C-alpha cells in the first residue's frame, strides 16, 4: 500500500491554480524528486504531502486513510518538511532544533543528545547558543535541516535542501540523505532545480509543469531528458518525430531503435515505444570523412547541405535522409576542408539521443 497517495489533487489560490489533477503515490522507503521550472507547483505538492495544505479538490491519503482529523495529525507527526526559505523560531539555535523533540515529549537528556548530534551533522555545533535569526543564509538553512533531521521522521520532505549551502554543506547533506535512506528506509521527497542532485539522491522523479504532472519515472532517465531539453531549449534543431520499436534490454535502460521518416533509423536509450519525439544535441554530433567504428551507436552517411559560420562556431547541416545539424569548431572545418555538397559521416552515441 502506498504510504502517501494523492488522488486527483487540485490546489487553487484565489486567482491561480497551483496544482491541477495530480495523482501520485509514494511508497514507503522510496525517494522521489520533484522537478520542474519555477512556479511549477513543487513547493505546493510538498506542503500537501506534509499535511500543511489542504487541496482544494481531490484526496490525500496516508497509509490508506483520508488525511484529515487524527490521520492528518499523524501525517504531520511522521512527515517533516524543510522549507525552501529558511524559517526559524526567534530563539537560540539549540531551542529551534530541540523544538520538534520536546513536542514529542522526549526526556531532556535525550533531547540534548539528539540536538547536538543533528547540529554536529550540519557542522553547526558551535552555533547552539546563537540567536537563530541572526545567522547567515546558509547557516539558517543548516539549522532548518538539523531541525528536521533531529526528529528522525519517517518521511522527509525537502524543498531545495541545498540552496544557500556551500559545497561542503551540500556534500554533507546529500551524503546524509543517502545514508538515512539506506539505514533507516526514510521516505524522501526532494524538490530541486539541481537535476544532477535529483539523480544522485532519488530513484524516481516527477516532472511538474504549470501545476500538472508531465512525467513520472526513473530519475536517471527523466533527468537526462530534462537536462537535454533545458540545455538546448534555445536551439530548436535536430528535433524529429519517429516511431520507437522494442529493442534489447540492458539492465533498466532499453536500447531502442527509432525510425525517423525517410528510412532513417537511429538507436537510443529509452523505455518508450510508439510515437516519440527525439532530439539529438548538435554539440554531440561528430562529423567525419570516413565512417567511424566506435562506441557510438549511430553513424549515418549524408551530404552537407549548409555551412553557417558564426564567430568561432560552425553550424553544419547534413542531409542524412533528414537534416541533422552539427556544431563544430572553425578549425575543424578548416582541417576537414568541408564544403557544401561533400559527403560526410555523422556519428553520435545512443545516449545523445533524447527521447520524449
Amino acid at each position, binding site marked *: 500500500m502506498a504510504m502517501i497517495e494523492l488522488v486527483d489533487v487540485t490546489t487553487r489560490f484565489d486567482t491561480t491554480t497551483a496544482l491541477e489533477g495530480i495523482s501520485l503515490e509514494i511508497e514507503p522507503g522510496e525517494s522521489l524528486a520533484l522537478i520542474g521550472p519555477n512556479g511549477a507547483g513543487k513547493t505546493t505538492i510538498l506542503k500537501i504531502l506534509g499535511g*500543511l495544505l489542504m487541496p482544494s479538490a481531490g484526496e490525500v491519503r496516508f497509509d490508506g486513510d483520508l488525511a484529515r482529523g487524527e490521520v492528518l495529525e499523524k501525517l*504531520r507527526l511522521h512527515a*517533516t518538511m524543510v522549507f525552501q526559505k529558511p524559517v526559524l523560531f*526567534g530563539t537560540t539555535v539549540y531551542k529551534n532544533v530541540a*523544538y*520538534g523533540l520536546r*513536542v514529542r515529549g522526549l526526556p531532556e537528556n535525550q533531547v540534548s543528545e539528539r540536538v547536538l548530534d543533528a547540529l554536529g551533522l550540519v557542522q553547526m555545533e558551535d552555533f547552539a547558543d546563537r540567536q537563530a535569526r541572526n545567522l547567515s543564509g546558509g547557516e539558517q538553512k543548516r539549522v532548518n535541516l538539523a531541525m528536521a533531521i533531529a526528529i528522525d521522521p519517517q518521511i522527509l*520532505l525537502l524543498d531545495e535542501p541545498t540552496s544557500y549551502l556551500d559545497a561542503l554543506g551540500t556534500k554533507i547533506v546529500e551524503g546524509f540523505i543517502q545514508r538515512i535512506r539506506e539505514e533507516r528506509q526514510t521516505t524522501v521527497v526532494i524538490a530541486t532545480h539541481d537535476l544532477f542532485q535529483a539523480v544522485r539522491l532519488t530513484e524516481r522523479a516527477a516532472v511538474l509543469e504549470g501545476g500538472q504532472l508531465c512525467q513520472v519515472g526513473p530519475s536517471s532517465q527523466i533527468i537526462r531528458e530534462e537536462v537535454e531539453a533545458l540545455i538546448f531549449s534555445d536551439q530548436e534543431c535536430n528535433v524529429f518525430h519517429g516511431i520507437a520499436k522494442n529493442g534489447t534490454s540492458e539492465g533498466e535502460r532499453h536500447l531502442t531503435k527509432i525510425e525517423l521518416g525517410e528510412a532513417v533509423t537511429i538507436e537510443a536509450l529509452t523505455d518508450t515505444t510508439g510515437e516519440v519525439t527525439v532530439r539529438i544535441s548538435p554539440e554531440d554530433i561528430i562529423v567525419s570523412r570516413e565512417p567511424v567504428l566506435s562506441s557510438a551507436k549511430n553513424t549515418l552517411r549524408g551530404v552537407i547541405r549548409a555551412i553557417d559560420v558564426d564567430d568561432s562556431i560552425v553550424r553544419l547541416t547534413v542531409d542524412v535522409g533528414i537534416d541533422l545539424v552539427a556544431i563544430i569548431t572553425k578549425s575543424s572545418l578548416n582541417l576537414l576542408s568541408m564544403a557544401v555538397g561533400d559527403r560526410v559521416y555523422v556519428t553520435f552515441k545512443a545516449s545523445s539521443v533524447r527521447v520524449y
Partner: protein
Amino acid sequence: MTVEEEIVSITLRSLTISGFAALLATVIGLPIGLFLGLRQFRGRDHIMVIVRGLMSLPTVALGLLLYLTFSRNGPLGFLQLLYTPLALIIGQAVLVTPIMISITSETVENVSPTIRELSLTLGASERGAAASVFRESLGGVVLAISASFSRAISELGVALMVGGNLQGLTRVLTTSIALETTRGEILLGIGLTIVLLSLMVVFNVLLNSAEKRVRWWLWQ
C-alpha cells in the same frame, strides 16, 4: 488611618483590582485574539469590526449598564455583587477585553504564517502551533497586557458606578483623584496621579524585563 496609610491602601487596592481585571481580560481575550489572528473564516472581519467598536464603550455607559445588571432589581442582582471589588474587577475586565483582543489579534496576524507551518511540520498540534505564534508575537501580547492594565487602572466610570468609591472597599486611585478634585484638593489629586503614573512606569519596566524572562521561559 493616616493619609499616607490611606494612600498606600488605595494604591494596593487599585493594583489588585485592576491586576485581576487585566488578568481576567488576558485569560479571556488572549485565546480569542490568537484565534482571530490565526484563522481566516467568514465573518471574521465582522467580529473584528465589532470588537474594535467595543473599544470605544465609554466607562460611564459601561458603568451604567453594569449597574443595571448588578443592581438588586437587575438580572444578576441576586449575586449581590454591586459595590464590591469583584464587581469592579468584572467591570474593568469587560472594559479592557476588546483592547486585549484587538491588539493581540493584530500582532498575531503579523507573525509570519510560516511559523505556524514550521511548528506543525515539526509535529506540534494546532494548539502547539498557536503557542509558537504566541511566543513570536510576545511583544504585542505584552503591549496588549500593558494597554489593558493601563486602561483598567485609569478608568473611572465603572469604578464609580459599580464600585461606588466606598472607602476601604472599592475606593481606588482614580475615584480618589476624582474625589479630591471635586473636593478642590487639587494638590492631593495631582499627588495621587503622580503615584499612579510612577506605579505604571514601574509596572511597564517590570513587564519589559518580564518579557525577556518569559520569552526565555516559554522556550524551556
